[in-house]
């Protein structure tokens, strides 16, 4: 019982943390602040993964997002002079208002459908799902082809990123 209460407490806290920090992320005018709030939201998500018994994915989440993607974003922010963007005031247009309204309605619909309906099948979270060994075995057996495709995708993305960020790539003058 105590465990269950502890779980609920952790769940509520981390959920709120994720929601609040992602809200802050989309509202901060300073891009670096946004980025830091995003890390926070992702870490909170990682804790939720742990709560669901998926340790491996939680680790990956932190390594990939908080580590790699975050570093990239910060590097780009560093390279680009964002002072103009940061001075921008929120411009309220009809499209944006409509967008927010539709989004909120959509969220309500989602909660209505997913949150209040019962889920069929084996219920109850596993204490552990997807440890490194299981996932590794699966990756090299059942999911071998997608795995290889994913590796090619990463290679292509790497080459693409290099090509795009080269100064001369599209006929621009060299430095």
């Amino acid at each position: 019982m105590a465990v269950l209460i502890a779980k609920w407490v952790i769940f509520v806290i981390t959920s709120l943390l994720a929601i609040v920090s992602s809200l802050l992320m989309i509202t901060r005018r300073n891009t670096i602040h946004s980025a830091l709030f995003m890390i926070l939201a992702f870490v909170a998500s990682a804790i939720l993964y742990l709560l669901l018994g998926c340790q491996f994915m939680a680790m990956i989440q932190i390594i990939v997002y908080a580590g790699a993607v975050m570093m990239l974003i910060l590097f780009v922010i560093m390279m680009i002079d964002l002072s103009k963007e940061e001075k921008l005031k929120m411009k309220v247009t009809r499209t944006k208002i409509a967008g927010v309204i539709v989004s909120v309605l959509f969220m309500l619909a989602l909660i209505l459908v997913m949150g209040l309906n019962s889920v069929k099948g084996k219920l109850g979270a596993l204490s552990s799902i997807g440890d490194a060994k299981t996932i590794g075995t699966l990756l090299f057996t059942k999911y071998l082809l997608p795995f290889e495709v994913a590796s090619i995708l990463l290679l292509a993305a790497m080459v693409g990123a290099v090509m795009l960020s080269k100064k001369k790539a599209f006929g621009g003058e060299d430095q």
Partner: protein
Amino acid sequence: MASYIWLIPFFPMVGFLINGLLGVKFKRSWIHIIAASAIGLSFLTTLILFFELLKVEPHARHFENVIFDWIVAGKFHTQVAFMLDPLSVVMALVVTGVSFMIHIYSGGYMHDDPGFRRFFVYLNLFVFSMLILVLSNSFLLMFVGWEGVGLCSYLLIGFWFEKDSAANAGKKAFVVNRIGDFGFILGLFLIVTTLSKHGIWSLNFDVVFKNAELFSPATVTAITLLLFVGATGKSAQIPLYVWLPDAMEGPTPVSSLIHAATMVTAGVYMIARCNVLYSMAPGTMEVVAVVGVLTAFFSATIALVQNDFKRILAYSTVSQLGYMFVGVGVGAFSAGIFHLMTHAFFKGLLFLASGSVMHAMAGELNIQKMGGLKKFMPVTFWVFMMATLAISGIPGFSGFFSKDEILWQSFHRGHIFVWIMGTLAAGLTAFYMFRLTFVAFFGKPRMDEETKHHLHESPKVMTYPMIVLAIASVVGGYVGIPPVLGGSNRFEKFLEPIMGGGGHEAVKEGAHAVAHASASLEFTMMAVSVIVALIGITVAYVFYIKNPELPVRLARGMRGLYTLLYNKYFVDEFYNSVFVQGTKDFATFLWQKVDVGIIDAIVNGVASIVESCGGLIRKLQTGYVQTYAFSILVGGVVVFVYFFWESLF
């Protein structure tokens, strides 16, 4: 041997490609050597094949050389294939032989022209197309050659296109030829549609002629008349002869090669090739013979009073082509081809000699400003004389044998009217040719001192080919000496397997009548034509050597007739006001009323409707990526609501 036939057109094509694609930097002498040797090799191949052909039995003289499948469309199937038989080998020999001489000659004649390379490129292309025409084994490939020579003719008439008159003459030749070609291709369509009803899908000569009985008399008359329309265009017969005199705007070797010796005879060749079909349509034959003789007579009368050296020769060409049509029209197909061959020699030579005169006279063509050239240009004079004697039908020269053959055949096959007109035209021919000779080469020089000072004989590169052709003009007739003069008419025998007319009755009867004609009658005929020619020569002598005021007085006395002849019966003016102006008016109507008023209005109306609709819809495209993201979201919501409609409420 059949496998070598493709070499004949191959060499000119190679010459065309080398000079045309790579020749920009070549020296002029190289270009000349490449072009001339291409034709020379082709001539040599033809000669070898000719002798090989002679070794074969007369009735087995038919070889085909298939190059590749050309059109395979459903049941219709045609190949690019060349055919060698007595007729095509004679044509190929004439074409390559005369072209070879003219190629050599052109090296001297065109020496200082800026378009030297272009000239030889066109010339080789022309010989290539002409060989395709004569060697093809089907109507379709023949048509390719037919159009190819038409194109080259256009390009070469307008060779000096910076001159308006040359560009217009080229255009005229092209348009007039197009009218003829339209008839020709309609004839081909009629052949295909008729034969396909019987399950035969081919335009090969063999197949068409073998199945000629399938045509009804009306159909075959229509086919042959349509093909003859094509022939009148290409071979400058009434009513489509008007382009040929204007074609003299081109360089003289071109006039010689294309507009005298080879291309213009394509119509005669085509009719001779289709003799099976023509024999089945006596009505058409009559039309061909009458058109031929009328052309021969009327263009000869025009030539009487012209003063332009090359125009006289041009009308003479039209007239001689008329003779050839008389030959094929009365059913003496080999006589027509015989005249074609001898004419190629002497008319080619006449033009070359006129080019030589022009060369010496700095481009002057008015014979009234010449005179006494004999002294300055002996070689040109003598070769010109040979050709003149040949064309006038003086016994012993080639023209005598061929022209006499035609006249005699027409008399004996019962075409008396044709014979009378033809004989008269022969007298006129002798007259105007000797008028030309006497005015240009005899008498006192009438050119100005400057020109006279520069008069000179042409270089050897020009005179030698002329001498070769002069020899051919003299001896060319000896291959076809008629039996009555102790010969055996080997030329006719050689062509006999092809010219049988498909063994048709009318032709057989005609040949029968000819074979059984009495020798004395034939001698009388010959004597008549020789006397007529001599009268023509004598009159010319009296008019232009003895008594030069006489023609002037005569012209003044018969003002009306003279003006009519001098202005070529006003045919050009007539065509211009009726056809050309009519077409222009109609086109203007179509342009201003129909095109601008109706078609453009419809098109513009549709465009403006589309434009205004587009103007409304384009507002959806803001260009901002977030608007697009928003529409994705809306789409997602719609899909979601659609699928979860029940669980929502």
